[in-house]
Structure formats: C-alpha cells, structure tokens
C-alpha cells in the first residue's frame, strides 16, 4: 500500500473545523454530514432566534433560513445578543445573516424579510426540512404549527417570558403531538403577556434558544432522545427544570388528526383574536370626554398640583414617574376597598378630579372603569398614550422602556 491514500469520512477542512463535535459519541461524522445536508428555517430573529442561528451556523448546518420583518432596536440588545450597536435600525434577518456568515462562511444563509402569514408560509417552508419556532406571538405559533404538519416538517418550538421558558419538538414521529393537539383553542388575548409587557431576561431566552439548537442537531443526527412528545419547563428563578411527558397525537386534532379539517393555512389573526406580532394594541375603552391627551395634562398640572394615579407595576414605577404620581397598580385598583384607594391617593371629599396614567394608555383606561365604580364622586380621566406619549411629546428626557 502506498502512503498517499486514505479513507475519509469527511473533508480535511471539516474534520479540522468541527473536530470537537465529531468526537462526541452519537453525533460524530454521520451527525456532521447530516447537519451539513440539513436545511433549517428559523422563524423569528429575536431573543430565541439569535442563539439558535449562531449555534447552528457555528455547528456547520448546511442551509439556514431566517424569517423576520422587524428591525433591530436598542431595547433588543440586552437579550438579542447576536446584534451589535451599529446594527440598530437595520433588518434583523439581514443583520443576523451577516453575523452568521462572518462566524462561518460555509453556511448558506437565506433571508426572508417578510411578515410570515397564511399567504407566504407554505412557499417559504417547503424549502426546509426542520423548522424552529422562535416567534413572540400566539397567531404565528398556530400558523407555523399548521404549515409544519401540512408539509410534514418537524417543529422545534421554544418560548420564554420573564424567568420562564418552554421547549418541545412537535410533529416528529407518528405518535408525536402537534401544538394544536395540546392547545386546540387559542388563549383569550387578554391573558397573553408578551415580552414587551412582562419583560424577559437574556439568559432565559439564551438557555431555551441554545436548547432549541441542540434539538435540531439531535434531529439531524438521528439521536432518538429528542423532546418529541415531551415539554421541558425551565424555571430560571428557582434554577429548576421539569420535563413533562405529553399526550400522544390526538386522532381528533384539526390539523394532524385522522380526519383533519384544516388542510391549508387559515386566518390566524381571526382564529386567535390577536395580531401576528408582539406589539401592544391601542385599546379604546373610554369616551373621549373621559380622557385627556398629554398636552392637556401638561397644562392642567402646570396650573395646580393634580392627583395622579399610576397603575404600573412597582418595577416600572421605579424606572421613572412624574413627581405627583402615586403608585396604585391595576390589580390594587381591582382588589382594594375604596377608602384605602382614597387614603393612598391622599384625597378628601372636596376633590373632584383625578387622573390615571400607565405605560401606554391601556391599563389606565381599565383602571378608570374600576375606579369610577369605587369612588363615584370623583371624575377620573386617563392620559392618552401614557408615559410613552409623554416622553415623545412633552419631555424627551423621560426614560422610555
């Protein structure tokens, strides 16, 4: 035998670059080659999408697709760690693609700068063999689930809020449930909290996103112990995680059941009663005469000190508030008796007017409705658009968050 021949399972370049993961039992050369031939779609380039994309790119996935219509903003950076300050204002999908390519130029990255909806999802998804749900809203979660079932693509689904995360693999194998098997009915929109309102810590999305990337690598490498049919619950505050064994596929499921009624994407905004984004809706619960705009309130308080009730949670009150504001949360407006509310506000029977403010002008309207019932001698009015509007129109030094 000559000394210039050899049998190679993998190219010299890849062996060198990926050696540490080639050495891992049950991943190895086969896992690496499968990963290289995988086409993975990441929907949502936010807190979850960043670690998923960076880890899969670094691990040598063949083709990565990224769907996101949004732009990088400064308040994304604490958790969306793939982005740089210089990328604020730029397309998330394109910025993330750029960062993946600079980390591993061998990855083929496709960018879809669209808002995913029923009209475009099938066309985009059909080019991929694994999908990661890294989105931030219920409507898109149902859309992604349904399209994955319709095209028979396994779905690695992650979500996170505050200190908590959830992770599962849906529609992977004949017994594996889909998202709809577990949650056939969407939640009431009033019970859904998004990261804009509830907040989230970077390492929580980082943990869940990293584990999503790991599930993709396991699926690519045919490792059988995936989270298919299981739901991992991560409680970062207590440092605990639990894995729940889920139900089997529901034969009566509307999309993956034996006689499905959903055979093409439906109208998910209608189905969920909520938009396909995580932006806060502007409610109109009060008559215009029961509301004042920020300019009006500026003039009113300029003439005389006013009674201002601030309904935000204490963590938000602590960030910044107007000096006259008294913090009584929306929950307290609901639960406290009227005498306690008036004593905390410091009002007596001679007071006729009081104002209510919150972050964006939704909870303040809810509070006015409650307060009217409890203290009916006082005319409560809310401030339209809340502190966000105040910061934009009256005082641009007021801290926005």
């Amino acid at each position, binding site marked *: 035998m000559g000394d210039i021949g050899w049998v190679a399972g993998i190219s010299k370049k890849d062996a060198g670059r990926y050696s540490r993961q080639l050495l891992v039992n049950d991943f190895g050369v086969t896992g690496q080659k499968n990963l290289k031939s995988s086409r993975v779609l990441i929907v*949502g380039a*936010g*807190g*979850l*999408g960043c670690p998923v994309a960076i880890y899969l790119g670094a691990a040598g996935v063949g083709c990565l697709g990224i769907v996101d219509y949004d732009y990088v903003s400064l308040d994304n950076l604490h958790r969306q760690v793939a982005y740089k300050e210089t990328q604020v204002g730029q397309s998330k999908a394109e910025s993330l693609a750029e960062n993946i390519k600079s980390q591993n130029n061998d990855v083929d990255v496709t960018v879809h700068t669209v808002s995913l909806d029923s009209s475009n999802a099938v066309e985009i998804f059909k080019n991929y063999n694994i999908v990661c*749900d*890294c*989105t*931030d*809203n*219920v409507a898109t*979660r149902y859309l992604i689930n349904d399209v994955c079932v319709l095209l028979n693509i396994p779905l690695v689904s*992650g*979500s*996170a*809020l505050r200190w*908590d*995360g*959830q992770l599962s693999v849906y529609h992977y194998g004949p017994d594996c449930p889909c998202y709809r098997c*577990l*949650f056939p*009915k*969407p*939640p*009431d929109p*009033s*019970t*859904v*909290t*998004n*990261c804009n309102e*509830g907040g*989230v810590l970077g390492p929580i*999305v980082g943990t869940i996103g990293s584990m999503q990337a790991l599930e993709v690598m396991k699926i690519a490498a045919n490792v059988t112990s995936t989270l298919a049919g299981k*739901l991992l*619950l991560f*409680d970062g505050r*207590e440092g605990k995680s*639990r*894995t*729940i*064994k*889920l*139900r089997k596929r529901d034969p009566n499921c509307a999309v993956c059941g034996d006689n499905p009624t959903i055979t093409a994407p439906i109208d998910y905004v209608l189905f969920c009663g909520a938009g396909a984004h*995580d932006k806060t809706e502007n409610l109109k619960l009060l008559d215009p005469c029961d509301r004042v705009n920020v300019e009006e309130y500026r003039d009113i308080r300029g003439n005389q000190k006013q009674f201002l009730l601030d309904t935000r949670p204490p963590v938000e009150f602590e960030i910044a508030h107007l000096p006259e504001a008294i913090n009584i949360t929306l929950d307290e407006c609901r639960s406290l008796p009227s005498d306690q509310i008036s004593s905390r506000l410091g009002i007596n029977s001679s007071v006729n007017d009081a104002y209510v403010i919150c972050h964006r002008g939704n909870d303040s309207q809810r509070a006015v409705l409650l307060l009217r019932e409890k203290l009916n001698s006082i005319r409560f009015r809310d401030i339209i658009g809340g502190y966000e509007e105040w910061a934009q129109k009256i005082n641009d030094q007021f801290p926005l968050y």
Partner: protein
Amino acid sequence: MISIKVLFFGEAFQLVGKREESVEFPVETDYDEIKKTVLEKYPSLSKIESVMMLAVDQEYANPGDRFELERFTEIAVIPPLSGG
C-alpha cells in the same frame, strides 16, 4: 382526602401569585375533579381554563384519566407560553 403539591407555571403563577401550594384532593380522583378543585380554590385561573394543561407526576393528564393520589404526587398547571 390527601394534601397534594400543586405547581403553577407561567401565566398561572402570575394569576395565583404563588409558585406552589398544597391543596386537598380525594385520594381516588379523576381529571375533571382535579380541574374543578383547582379552579374552585383559585378562581382567577378561570381566565386560562380553556388553555391550561394539567400534569400529574410530570405526565400530561387527559380528560377522563383516573388517578390514585399519593403523598408525593405533584400536580402542575401549565398554560402555553408564547413570548420569545
């Protein structure tokens, strides 16, 4: 009756205000009775009633399932989480 630890995840924690609490259940019970007992004790959970999963000893509970509860049985209330 037996005292069983009930865990509240995500929005359920927000609504109840506690991560866990012990609740009295009949030793021999079923899915519907567990759900009814939890909702009676924590009426605020009615907001998420249609979407909350129940898990008994880390296993998804189906309507109709019967259970024999033991001292260390754990019941979890798990609504979906949608942020990211």
